[in-house]
């Protein structure tokens, strides 16, 4: 059954699979046919919840409704639970938007897919928001423009809000990550001339590029190199280079490789300049990359707008997660207004059927994936790496900062509201290159690395 169906109709099923009345091809069509006003929708949500609580078994509900009739049932249930009051409270909470016209900044890479596609594909509109997505030239600029409040929210690298909150590389401003955008979807790309040097141990003296100092790319590349015995600070050079410069610099032979965001990896292949050495999912399966970030002020001053915006992002991310939607998304975000790349490049990145630059077509459907849930343990891992490479010093309150910045509880609540199933926990263990990370013991984890700058 759809969240917005009348649970007092005996023929409706309460299960959430397929179209609930059987008359429509899909649940989306069903929803359109059963279009309700906003107030009615909230009423349905409340009634549905009440009925589900009273009748955990659908058969019981049906029998009850057949026996007494819908209106008697409504009266009976209303006596126990003041449905109209609850509905009103919910509608008010989610109603009045403090601000409709928003500006959201993005960097033209596929990581920003949910933020970008939500504009042309109408996800913002569905939440009654008028969002202008603004292309921005670099990470430092997007940070400054968001801190200046020119943007209401922005696409950032997932470690950036942590760094901003702690005042690493900028003034400390309380920042938050209400949702992760993408997981996986990065790669190590090497210049064509290193076709035969596939072993990282032979990479001494290489010059690498990463998009920003406070980026998963930087931490993953350093981690990968260090695991192979290469000290990322002394044996190689790692520079922060804006993504579009990466391909140009590789063509000019200024860098030997980069761990960069797509579409730049695929673009290097497309132009015959480099090849994909390793997808980032092979370093850490399911690693976060970019995040949807907003200042804490925005959340406290405009809670309804924030919730609506986050609903749109979560919705879009869920849509992008489905493999069958990827081609359509590629077509929507490739034009000059958004990513400004050849459509085939974007399509290869999103569908995971791609040329690897060495003459083979690889099929990796989860090369790039989208999952909004901001696990607090992601933040803890990033903090351990920031400390490992000397970006932050002294005692670090790992769990405290992670909880303050990565708003897992909010995401849980909003995902539930939209009928998605969020994970029950806010932290999880995962392994990076086979090494298990336990978010409860960050200090031990940090101490276990032979190469690092942590003091």
């Amino acid at each position: 059954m759809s969240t917005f169906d009348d649970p007092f109709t005996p023929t409706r099923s309460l299960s959430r699979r397929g179209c609930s009345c059987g008359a429509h091809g899909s649940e989306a069509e069903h929803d359109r046919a059963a279009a309700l006003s906003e107030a009615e929708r909230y009423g349905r949500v409340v009634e549905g919840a009440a009925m589900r609580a009273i009748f955990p078994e659908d058969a019981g509900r049906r029998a009850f409704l057949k026996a007494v009739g819908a209106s008697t049932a409504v009266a009976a249930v209303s006596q126990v639970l003041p449905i109209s009051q609850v509905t009103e409270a919910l509608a008010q909470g989610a109603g009045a938007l403090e601000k409709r016209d928003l500006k959201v900044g993005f960097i033209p890479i596929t990581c920003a897919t949910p933020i970008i596609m939500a504009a042309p594909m109408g996800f913002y509109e569905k939440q009654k928001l008028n969002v202008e997505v603004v292309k921005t030239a670099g990470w430092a600029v997007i940070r400054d423009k968001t801190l200046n409040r020119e943007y209401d929210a922005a696409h950032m690298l997932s470690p950036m809000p942590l760094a901003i909150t702690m005042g690493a590389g900028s003034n400390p401003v309380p920042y938050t990550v209400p949702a992760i955008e993408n997981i996986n979807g990065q790669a190590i790309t090497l210049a064509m001339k290193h076709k035969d040097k596939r072993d990282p141990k032979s990479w001494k003296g290489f010059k690498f590029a990463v998009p920003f100092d406070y980026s998963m790319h930087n931490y993953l590349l350093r981690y990968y190199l260090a695991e192979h015995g290469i000290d990322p600070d002394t044996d190689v050079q790692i520079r922060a280079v804006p993504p579009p410069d990466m391909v140009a610099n590789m063509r000019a032979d200024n860098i030997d490789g980069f761990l960069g965001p797509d579409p730049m990896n695929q673009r290097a292949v497309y132009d015959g300049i480099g090849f994909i050495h390793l997808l980032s999912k092979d370093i850490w399966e399911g690693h976060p990359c970019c995040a949807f970030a907003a200042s804490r002020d925005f959340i406290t001053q405009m809670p309804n707008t924030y919730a609506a915006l986050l609903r749109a992002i979560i919705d879009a991310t869920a849509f992008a997660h489905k493999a069958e939607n990827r081609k359509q998304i590629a077509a929507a975000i490739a034009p000059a207004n958004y990513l400004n790349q050849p459509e085939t490049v974007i399509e290869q990145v999103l569908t995971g059927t791609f040329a690897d630059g060495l003459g083979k077509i690889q099929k990796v459907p989860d090369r790039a994936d989208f999952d909004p849930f901001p696990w607090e343990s992601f933040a803890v891992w990033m903090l351990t790496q920031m400390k490992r490479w000397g970006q932050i010093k002294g005692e670090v309150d790992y769990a405290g900062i992670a909880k303050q910045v990565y708003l897992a509880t909010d995401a849980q609540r909003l995902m539930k509201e939209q009928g998605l199933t969020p994970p029950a926990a806010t932290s999880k263990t995962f392994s990076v290159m086979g090494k298990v990370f336990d978010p409860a013991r960050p200090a031990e984890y940090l101490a276990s690395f032979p190469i690092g700058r942590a003091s």
Partner: protein
Amino acid sequence: MTAPLRLRALFLSLLILVLCLGAWQIAVSGSGATADMDPDYAKLMGQTATTGKSAMPSPLDVGKTIWGHLRDPFYVRGSNDKGIGIQLAYSLGRVTLGYLIAVLVAIPVGFLIGMSPLMGRALDPFIQLLKPVSPLAWMPLALYTIKDSGISSIFVIFICSVWPMLINTAFGVASVRKEWLNVARTLEVGPVRRAFTVILPAAAPTILTGMRISIGIAWLVIVAAEMLVGGTGIGYFVWNEWNNLSITNVITSILVIGVVGMILDQLLAQAQRAVTFPE
């Protein structure tokens, strides 16, 4: 028989142009070795990789692109994709505003410095220190303090274009011929009237030279500032096309930027001619 110099120069210019374009066309035409590729794989690759086509566009490609932009300069396909005419308008708007503010500041202050040797000496170290600072160095500071990217770029134009005008005005004012000032003094002309009727006309050619240098600088600065800040303007257009590694469009915008800069310069050259006087 000798044609007039102008005609010969024109002929030589054209010859150089044709030679350059010809060399360019030859340099980029001809495809390299076509790599042996699986057709399915080749479909996923770009032309540079499959046919060995040079990544540099030929003059013909650039011509086609320019024609495409000129035919439809004012389209709007969303907030991040606007026609080149609109982008130019944005940039010109910013330049005009920043430049006018600079004029309003530089000329009075220049007068002050030029008329008072004491002020001249006192302000000189500051001017010398701030004059050579690159626009891009100002940008982060402006973004941080002004907290608005649009105003920041206008500020950067202002701060970069103010110095040549200031220095030239001060120089022009200071080097007005002593005889004229003495005549004014003999006739008991008040200081305000002296400034407007004697000094201003006398210093005008020098001031306009400064203004002409400044407009060139302002136009240089806007492209850099917009590349950094993004959003709108011709600088953003260059950055956006570079992001797509579209050399054709980058060359196109270089030409457009050059032409507009030339027009701005010529406008001020006209003004300069209008105030020049024979001695």
